[in-house]
């Protein structure tokens, strides 16, 4: 009883519209679809935005959108093609027409036909495509411009496959989930996927978070040299954008690699823990300038290819990234959109309605010819836009624009961020984009199964592509990439038990409000601290942010509920001040610092502990859960609370593991692990600006 297979060969309306707070909104999707249909990007240049990515706040000096549009109109596609402007790049011995590396999407993550379409389009349009970690699909293997991946799980790898393609890419990490491993569940390891990955059908396919032979830069150098000598081909390294990535790039260059792919926060993926996607790693526009600078100052820039990825949507983004210091761009999500992606974020379920990331059991198939045509046309459009931009700037090749930051002007950001970019600040402002709290419902899997929410695709960086609620949101959590290994919390120990100076041990630094007896019971059963329990201690005192506790207080509780959350100073700011003053007074080791506020998830807990708190309440998420559960009997409520608390613990471990931390002891006061997207917030919370 074979189900009828539906062939997907047209675009369907995107999900989000303009109201969904994410980067890939209806406007960007429409622009890519138009480009993939008519072969020209419209508009060519977006107006400078007041918020969003730094790329969106950057203006290319001397380019007037209207004039450029008029020029495009006048020349027409054929005229643009005839312009004597080179936007291509030499890549592993071939000349690419367009400086685009189509992101590493494996067969398995995508459903086969999209992989074929990407590979054919890369050949046709003169781009290059990474095949991801899933073995080599026989149809993809027929293409020339492919890059083979060497990843931690070694799936599908053998000595023959490694010698295919233009180059080998050592995948250390990706922007959507820096420091996180992968898991293809047994039920998806079937048929062709199992065969190509060289796995027994029905086996669990785990990709460890680190390569277990790469725990440091010299280990990476070893693998770079090994693969270069083994394959005789150039070797690339792909890593998520972190604050140390510049040094990693220098080390990678010294090892003799041909280049590095730096994948920024907000990048797409088939599946990532939501908490990691939203809070770990830095956006690509923060990373590229410093990577370029460090490569230059260490004398290894020439001949080394810097590929920038993560929310790169159009030719104008590529041009700006090149001016900031990159050589080419990696694009994944944009290519999927060209093939019909509607941004429904359910890639991880295997039920993709547009036949891109669907499991092979689903009765939909992407039309390979149609998709190849779309991606080819879109790449041609990107090439044309780049040609126009380079031409309008009076240059004859994109390569000559590399690192030309004098051509860029930054709007609505602060001096610290402008300094990081090395770009003139045209109009001061703040990067941080504050808005109304966007309360998301607690997913059922959290309180029913204690499962960490997993989503597909990227596009979300709080305070940057979506509104932030408070300064804390502007902080990015550092991930371990190359210089040290991330730690898998499910298989290796990450100790989140927290010891107070008096010897009390709590199983997590997560404080639970006492608003429901069932919640208190759940907390006590699991060994989590409760707000009322802490307040009852004789040595405790609660104060609002901005107030000093009475002298001799040993459990200092700072409660923003005593004052209203939005007053000044912010709770996070006050925690920083108190922590500093206790260190200065030499009493830090004798005081417990507790932050009670409207915190939502474990990223808040992580950040506050790293800023200096011992214990942090996750008040708001648990309050919302209480409302949701009202009406249920106490037993069921308690179990739901237990699940939510356990899940918060797992999230915290995931975030710590991503940064290579194995104990909360090493997290407390470790502000080095935090960076701010906004200069003012950086000063307020005594952390560095992202990218440093």
């Amino acid at each position, binding site marked *: 009883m074979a189900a009828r297979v539906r062939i997907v060969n047209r675009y369907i309306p995107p999900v989000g519209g303009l109201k969904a707070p994410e980067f890939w909104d209806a406007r960007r999707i429409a622009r890519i679809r138009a480009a993939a249909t008519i072969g020209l990007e419209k508009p060519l240049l977006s107006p400078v935005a007041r918020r969003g990515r730094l790329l969106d706040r950057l203006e290319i000096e001397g380019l007037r959108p209207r004039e450029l549009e008029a020029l495009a109109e006048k020349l027409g596609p054929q005229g643009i093609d005839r312009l004597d402007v080179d936007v291509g790049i030499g890549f592993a011995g071939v000349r690419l027409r367009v400086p685009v590396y189509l992101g590493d999407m494996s067969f398995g993550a995508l459903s086969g036909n999209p992989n074929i379409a990407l590979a054919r389009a890369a050949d046709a349009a003169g781009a290059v495509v990474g095949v991801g970690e899933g073995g080599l699909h026989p149809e993809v293997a027929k293409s020339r411009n492919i890059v083979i991946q060497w990843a931690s799980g070694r799936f599908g*790898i053998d000595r023959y496959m490694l010698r295919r393609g233009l180059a080998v890419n050592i995948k250390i990490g990706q922007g959507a989930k820096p420091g996180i491993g992968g898991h293809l569940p047994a039920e998806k390891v079937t048929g062709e996927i199992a065969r190509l990955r060289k796995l027994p059908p029905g086996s*669990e396919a785990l990709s460890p978070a680190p390569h277990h032979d790469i725990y440091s830069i010299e280990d990476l150098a070893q693998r770079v040299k090994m693969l270069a000598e083994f394959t005789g081909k150039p070797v690339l390294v792909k890593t998520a954008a972190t604050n140390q990535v510049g040094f990693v790039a220098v080390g990678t260059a010294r090892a003799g690699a041909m280049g590095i792919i730096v994948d920024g926060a907000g990048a797409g993926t088939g599946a990532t823990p939501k908490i990691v996607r939203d809070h770990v790693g830095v956006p690509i526009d923060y990373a590229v300038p410093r990577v370029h600078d460090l490569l230059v100052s260490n004398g290894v820039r020439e001949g080394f290819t810097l590929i920038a990825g993560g929310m790169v949507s159009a030719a104008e983004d590529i041009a700006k990234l090149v001016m900031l210091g990159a050589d080419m761009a990696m694009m994944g999500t944009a290519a999927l959109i060209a093939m019909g992606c509607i941004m429904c974020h359910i890639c991880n379920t295997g039920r993709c309605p547009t036949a891109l990331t669907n499991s092979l059991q689903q009765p939909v198939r992407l039309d390979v010819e149609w998709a190849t045509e779309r991606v080819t046309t879109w790449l041609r459009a990107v090439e044309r836009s780049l040609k126009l931009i380079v031409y309008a700037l009076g240059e004859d090749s994109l390569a000559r624009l590399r690192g030309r930051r004098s051509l860029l002007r930054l709007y609505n950001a602060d001096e610290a961020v402008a300094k990081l970019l090395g770009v003139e600040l045209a109009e001061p402002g703040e990067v941080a984009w504050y808005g109304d709290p966007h309360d998301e419902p607690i997913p059922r899997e959290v309180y029913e199964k204690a499962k960490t929410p997993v989503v597909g695709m990227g596009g979300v960086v709080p305070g940057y592509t979506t509104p932030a609620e408070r300064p804390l949101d502007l902080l990015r959590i550092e991930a*371990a990439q190359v*210089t040290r290994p991330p730690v898998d919390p499910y298989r290796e120990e990450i100790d989140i038990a927290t010891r107070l100076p008096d010897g009390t041990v709590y199983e997590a630094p997560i404080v639970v409000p006492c608003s429901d007896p069932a919640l208190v019971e759940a907390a006590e059963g699991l060994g989590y601290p409760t707000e009322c329990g802490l307040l009852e201690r004789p040595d405790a005192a609660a104060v609002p942010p901005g107030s000093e506790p009475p002298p001799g207080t040993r459990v200092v509780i700072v409660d923003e509920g005593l004052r209203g959350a939005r007053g000044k100073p912010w709770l996070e700011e006050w925690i920083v001040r108190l922590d500093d003053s206790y260190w200065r007074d030499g009493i830090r080791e004798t005081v417990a610092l507790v932050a009670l506020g409207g915190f939502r998830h474990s990223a808040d807990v992580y950040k506050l502990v790293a800023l200096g708190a011992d214990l942090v309440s996750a008040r708001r998420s648990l309050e919302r859960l209480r409302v949701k559960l009202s009406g249920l009997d106490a037993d069921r409520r308690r179990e739901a609370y237990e699940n939510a608390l356990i899940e918060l613990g797992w999230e915290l471990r995931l975030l710590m593991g991503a940064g290579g931390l194995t104990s909360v002891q090493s997290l*407390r006061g470790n502000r080095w692990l935090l960076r701010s997207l906004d200069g003012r917030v950086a000063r307020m919370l005594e952390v560095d600006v992202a990218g440093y």
Partner: protein
Amino acid sequence: MCGIAGVASLDGTPEPIERVVEALEAMRERGTEHGAGYAAYSPEPRGLVRARLFAAGPRDLEEAGRLLGPLLVEGPRLYRRLGHGVEVHEALLSDYPPPAAVGRRIWFLQASRFLEVWKSIGWPREVAEAYRLWGRSSPAVIGHTRYPTNSPGFQPWLAHPFTAGETVIVHNGDLSSYGANRRMISYSLGLSGFTGNDSEVIAYLVEMLYRDGLGPADIVDALVYGKGPAAARLDGPYAVIYIHGDPRGPIFSAFVDRHHFRPLYVARTETRIYVASEAAAVKEMAPGARPVMLRGGGYIVVYPDGEVEARGLTAWKEFGHPPPPPWALDASRMSRRELNQALAEMLARRGYAAAYNLRGHRYVANGLGPGRLELWGTVGNASLNLAEGLDVKIYGDAQEDLGDAMTDTRIVVYGNVGDSAGQAMRSGELHILGDAGNRLGVQMKGGVIVVRGDAGDYLAEFMAGGTIVALGRVGRYTATGMVGGKIYIRGHLPVSHIGKAPPRRQVERYIRALADRGEITREQMMKALAGQTVEELLEALGDKFRRLAKLWGVLHVGYPRAEYRYLRSEEQEELEEILRSHVKATGQPLDIEDTLNHKFTVITSVKVKPQDEGAW
């Protein structure tokens, strides 16, 4: 990041510094030309503090004069010129400079009564030459070759070693705890300036802990096991060698993080302890000595009186090796490329290749096969990766990542193997007669591994298929993340060493809470509290275990189930076949019948299916 080496004298006789230079030069692969350095125990004859600092111009010297003025006994005078306008100046002081002086625009090379430190940009040999170290010797010497990753590579003060008072360290790794450590140090010592190199904090922490009266073993407890001040705990990868200057002589020590993310090898002779990142480098210092591994969380200390204290060293074992055939290649004068090319040609021509005097050559025979291969010496990192159809004998030790992703290849090692041997191997056999490092058989997908000696932690992590037979002792976190395959461990491996479980304290608390609420009976509670394994808890708690299971997180993906028992007949058959093949391949006798009649810890992977019934 990098390669480190050190030597300590047990009888007080000095060792040439050159020895350490040679060890570092043997590990060039671990370093770059962007920094190297040395330190030695060398008391200032008059008991003064020997301060040496980098100066990049007259302003630095003025500043130094101003900061050190009140303490100045002699100098400052030019000590060495390092090129690029950087000089090292020396001043003799009556006491240690105040912490505020350290790291404020001026970078100190040292300020110490008992130590001397030399470091700069360059390869190890170049730095030794720049400081004219030839002919110098000391009872304790350490050295470092640098592969920079978290700070620029062109400033000499960012090279190792790093000093604080009477402590000088070399470090290989990258601390995730850096921010927390730095914060504590800056407030405790009143320090404001740091180089930005994470390794520096280790010197300060060790020095602080000595000043607090701790001994070397207590210091390891504080730094490695978190049993001291919270912010003194180190996290992330580290292998450290340090010297602490003491009036009685040097305290020399080395330690490794608990996960063994960074390697250290140790050799002991009558009069010396040698330590280095690679076995081949240890052999460079002590050609006759046999290097052993320092396990995760292990340490070694040499006290001023020559007494040695160690935890976590693997055993010293000797294996007889036959002589190489007369036509075998002498690898000692070959680069790794030359060696590999010659081996490939030999294999192609006659299907049989052999080489001796391997000195840590890397990538040996990667992707080669089919054919027969014999190697004598120390096989370097990432060798026999992706081999297909090779039959290999290694007479000596193999370093890290041997046989990664190999297929249909049989390797016999008459010696020890480093970490991650047999990673992701698909088929074939790996026989290890000595000890194995951590993560033996990590994400193994098929084939057989037999280890006669001891195996480290994380044996068979993420194992997906195949069979591992361990006849010696086995470390912690065995089979964590295992999703397939089978492990036979001769003798009893405690439950605490298998897989990963939530904190016992939390599990017991939860069981008591269940009983307090009347959700389980007292009997069930007692039974559950006595239960150690998932199976025992499942049996005691029945359906209620479903809730506790969430503390494990991934029981539904797979976890190791261990049984300590006599083998079943079909298991005896399987094992007998493996062991016969092992004896045949290795030529090493083994009483197979006796072995099969031992009790084994048999580990397989099982799942706890999530149950959908119940409250939700």
